[in-house]
């Protein structure tokens, strides 16, 4: 067992970092992209160790919510609450995915994906 003041992720109750909140302020899709804003790059305005780590992670390159959860080793639901808070505070920008609906947007997206895959 770990007796230090800085317990490892596995020993922390997952939602402790969200102060017990399990509902995010806004719903964020698992593949939604997150990018640290100029404000979020200023360490002095980002409170909390987890939020600082997320801000650092998404400053290097855009990351999906799933990537944030995986790299932070936290459940998806916890990452979602934290990222929603950070978005509300203007620390990160969240770019929603393009859903493939029955419209021209969906067709355009599919064509982009197809040509991208062919270039791989």
């Amino acid at each position, binding site marked *: 067992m770990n007796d230090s003041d800085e317990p490892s992720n596995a020993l922390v109750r*997952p939602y402790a970092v969200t102060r017990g909140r399990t509902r995010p302020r806004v719903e964020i*899709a*698992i*593949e*939604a*992209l997150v*990018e640290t*804003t100029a404000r979020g790059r200023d360490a002095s305005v980002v409170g909390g160790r987890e939020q600082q780590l997320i801000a650092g992670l998404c*400053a*290097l*390159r*855009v990351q*999906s919510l*799933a*990537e944030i*959860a*995986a*790299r932070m080793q936290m*459940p*998806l*639901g916890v990452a979602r609450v934290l990222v929603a808070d950070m978005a509300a505070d203007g620390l990160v*920008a969240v*770019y*929603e*995915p*393009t*859903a*493939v*609906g*029955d419209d021209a947007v*969906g*067709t355009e*997206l*599919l*064509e*982009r*994906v*197809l040509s*991208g*895959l*062919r270039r*791989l």
Partner: protein
Amino acid sequence: MGFGGSDEGYRRPSGRVTSSKIVIAGGFGVGKTTLVGSVSEITPLTTEAIMTSASVGVDETAGVPGKTTTTVAMDFGRITIDQDLILYLFGTPGQTRFWFMWDELVKGAIGAIVLVDTRRLADCFAAVDFFEHRGLPYLVAVNCFDGVQLHQLEDVREALAVGPQVPVIPCDARSRESTKQVLITLVEYVLNMRRTRQTTPSR
């Protein structure tokens, strides 16, 4: 398009960055993570979602009746399609009791790949049923290491009772080129379905 001065590692917020996803389903050990890893630009990552659901009695914790928490692991990978579009591949457990998770996974997805091991065909029945029910376009990719005969593909089609329009194709999940071809086949299939729907007068 003019995207002057973008550094390679860092993308400036353009406000138009977006993402999409393809779901990879199949039984345990069929090679989903191998398939994702063969084309992903990152080593496949695992995210764990904690699910609280009404207890089904199977893995009920002693002394805590009524509710059960399950940790569902999803392996996923990432492909940068172009400067403003990232495609994610999500591998998902095939078992029926994870369907509540799939709802979130399939929402807005391009389509799904059902990865099949011919020795354990039954493992993917739940996935095929689910995608049929949800109306999500899917194809069946038969993972085979030593080549596959055409009649085997037709046997798989018959055993899974999938319609004649659904592609059933061989693949080698270890091969980048093979996986790339599976993804291309899926996207072409989805595009063709849409074009057919648009040109066919509704009855």
